C-alpha cells in the first residue's frame, strides 16, 4: 500500500492522496504537500530503499489513523444482558460513552463491571459458557452484528488489563508494534519506528525507554509495563480504549503516572475504565457509571452521569453510600 505511489502514475500523487483521504475520513481534499518535501529524499521506504517521489503517508494503513486529529468515537451499549451459563450477571445495561471522554465504571466486586467492559470489545465470548443479549454500537454499527469480524471490532477497541501483560518473548520495540504483526498489518521499518515513538510518547514512556528499546518488555517495572501495554493498545490508533483496573496492581507513584497518561489520552481516544479506587475515578473521569448487583440479582447500573455530580450529589442512596465509602 505504502509503495502504491510508485506503481500508480495516474492521475497524480495528490489525487491519490485525496481519494484515500476522502474514502477514509470523508474529508475535503487537502492541498498539495509542501513542495520542499516533495523533492527531498526520504529516509524511509520499505527495504531501506530511498527514492524520490511523492509523500504517501495517507496511503499507509498504519499511519492512516494519525491523519485525523482525533480518532475518538462514541461507544454505545444498548440493553446488554450477559450470562455465564445459566447465571445472569448483567441485566439490560445501557450506557453511552461519549467520544473523547473518560468514562469510569465503579461499583463493588462482582457487580459485572468487568464483564460489561469485556463485552464492549467482544472479549466476553472467549469464555466458553458466556452469552449475551443487546447491542454495542460503534460508528453506527453493532459490533456483534453477524457480518462483523470480531477482530475488526477489537482493532478499533483497544484494551488494557488489570495485570500488566507485555509479551515476554518480545522486546519493548516489538511489544509496542505487536499489534501490526498480530493483525497482519504490513508496515515498513520507518512506519514501525514512527509508531513506536509515537505510541510510547502517548503512553508517556518514550523518555524512559528510548535507549533500551531492544531489551525485553518484561524487564520494566510494573508501572512501566502497564504503560507499555497502553502504548501497545494505542499503536493501532483505536477509537476506544478499555481499561480494566489498570492501576490496581501498581504502587501509588506508578498509579499516578498511569493517571497522567490517561489524562493525556483524553480527547484523543474514548476511554472506559473500570476502577475500584473511588478517588481515582473522581480524579480522571468525565463520566461515571455506578454498577451494583444486589444479592442473587444480576448487575445493573444504578446511576450514571457526570463524575462531579455522582460524587457530590448522587441521587440514589446506594450511590451515595458507595462513593462515600460506607460500603463496598
Amino acid at each position, binding site marked *: 500500500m505504502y509503495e502504491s505511489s510508485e506503481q500508480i502514475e495516474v492521475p497524480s500523487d495528490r489525487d491519490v492522496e485525496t481519494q484515500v483521504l476522502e474514502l477514509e475520513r470523508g474529508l475535503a481534499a487537502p492541498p498539495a504537500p509542501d513542495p520542499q518535501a516533495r523533492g527531498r529524499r526520504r529516509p524511509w521506504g520499505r527495504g531501506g530503499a530511498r527514492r524520490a517521489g511523492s509523500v504517501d503517508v495517507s496511503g499507509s494503513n498504519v499511519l492512516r489513523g494519525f491523519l485525523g486529529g482525533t480518532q475518538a468515537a462514541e461507544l454505545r451499549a444498548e440493553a446488554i*444482558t450477559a450470562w455465564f451459563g445459566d447465571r445472569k450477571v448483567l441485566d439490560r445495561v445501557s450506557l453511552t460513552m461519549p467520544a473523547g471522554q473518560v468514562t469510569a465504571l465503579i461499583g463493588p466486586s462482582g457487580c459485572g463491571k468487568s464483564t460489561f467492559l469485556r463485552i464492549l470489545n467482544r472479549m466476553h*465470548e472467549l469464555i466458553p459458557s458466556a452469552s449475551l443479549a443487546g447491542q454495542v454500537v460503534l460508528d453506527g454499527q453493532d459490533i*456483534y452484528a453477524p457480518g462483523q*469480524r470480531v477482530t475488526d471490532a477489537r482493532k478499533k477497541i483497544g484494551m488494557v488489563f488489570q495485570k500488566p501483560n507485555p509479551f515476554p518473548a518480545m522486546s519493548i520495540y516489538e511489544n509496542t508494534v505487536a499489534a501490526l504483526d498480530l493483525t497482519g498489518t504490513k508496515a515498513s521499518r520507518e512506519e514501525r519506528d514512527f509508531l513506536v515513538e509515537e505510541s510510547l510518547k502517548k503512553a508517556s514512556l518514550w523518555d524512559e525507554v528510548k535507549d533500551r528499546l531492544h531489551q525485553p518488555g518484561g524487564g520494566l517495572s510494573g508501572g512501566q509495563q502497564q504503560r507499555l501495554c497502553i502504548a501497545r493498545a494505542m499503536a493501532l490508533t483505536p477509537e476506544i480504549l478499555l481499561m480494566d483496573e489498570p492501576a490496581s496492581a501498581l504502587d501509588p507513584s506508578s498509579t499516578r503516572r498511569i493517571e497522567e497518561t490517561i489524562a493525556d489520552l483524553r480527547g484523543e481516544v474514548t476511554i472506559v475504565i473500570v476502577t475500584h479506587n473511588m478517588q481515582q475515578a473522581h480524579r480522571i473521569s468525565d463520566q461515571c457509571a455506578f454498577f451494583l448487583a444486589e444479592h442473587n440479582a444480576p448487575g445493573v447500573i444504578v*446511576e450514571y*452521569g*457526570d463524575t462531579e*455530580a455522582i460524587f457530590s450529589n448522587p441521587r440514589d442512596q446506594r450511590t451515595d453510600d458507595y462513593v462515600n465509602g460506607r460500603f463496598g
Partner: protein
Amino acid sequence: MTTTYLPDYPASSLDDAVARDIRVAHAPVDQAFRQITRLAGSFVLVIMVLVGTFLSVKAVKAIKSVGVWEFLTTQKWSPETNHFGIAALLTATVTIALIALVVSLPLSLGASLFITEVATGRLRGFLTGAIDLMAAVPSVVYGLWGLVFLQSHMVPFARWLSTYFGWIPIFKVDGADPSNPLPNDALYTSSAFIGALVVGMMIIPIQTSMMREAFSRAPQGEREGAYALGATKWGMIRSVVIPFGKGGIIGGTMLGLGRALGETIALYLILSPVFDINLHILQNGSNSVAVTIALRYGEANDFTMSALMAAGLSLFLLTMAINFTASAIIARSRSGAESEG
C-alpha cells in the same frame, strides 16, 4: 453537565432478554489453524485407538480359545498346546513392581524432602538435575549395570537375608543350605529381588520429581505458621509439608508402580523366566509379562502372538488403571489442584 441518570428497569420484563447468537466468524487462517490442530488431535486419537483396538481384537482370539477365567488363573505359558494364562506372569510382574516400590519409596521420599526442605542453592539445583538425569538414563544401561555389577554384589546380601530371615516365607529359598560353608550363588541369581532392585532404581526419579513438585507447593505461610508455633524443621515437615504433599506421594508412588510394571529390558537381561507362581523373591527365577513378550514374540506363530497380545493387553489395562488412579489422586489433592489452576 452536572446531572446524573437513574436507569429505569421495568421489573416485569426481567426475563425477556434472549441471548444473541454470537457465532464467531473466524478468518480463513484461523479456520485453517483450528481445522489442522483438530485434525492432528483426531489423528493422534485414531492412532491411539487403533493401537488399543488392534491389541484387543488380536487378544480376543487367544482369550476366547481358553476362556477368560482360565486365562486369568493358568500359570503355564504354552500357547502351542492351548494351555496358557497370565496368573504366574502377572503375579511375578506385580511382585517385582511391589518390591521395587518398597526399595524406592523411602529413598525417593527422603530425597524429595531433602531437596525441597533441607538442601539450598546449588546443592538443590545439583540434586534436582541429577535426579532428572537419572530418569533419562536408558533402561538398557540400568539393565546391564544390574546384570553385571549389582547382581554379583547383591547375591551375598540375598544369601544373608535368606539365611537369617528364611523363616519369613517370602525370604525362603528352596534348596538353600545355610550349613554349607561354600555358598551356592546360583540359587540367588536372576531372582525377582535382584530384578526389582534395578527396577526400583529406575522408578526413583519419577517418584522423586512428583513428590518434589508436591512438596515445593506447600504454602510458605503454613510453613512459617508451623515455625511460629515453635516447631522444629522436622515438626514443620510432618505437620505441613507431608500432609500437603500427600497427593503427590501417593500419585508419584502409583506412577512409579505403573512404570515398574511395564519395565522390559532390565528384567529381560536379569530374570530367569519361570512360569510358576514363585513368591520366594530371593530365589532364582521370576517372570514378567513384558519379558515374556520380548522373549517369545520372535518364534510366535499367529496364535501364540495373539496370546502374547492378550498378556500385553492385560498389562496395559493394569497400568492404565493405576495411572488414572494416580492422576485422579494428584488432581484431587491440594498440591495438585493448585497446579491445575
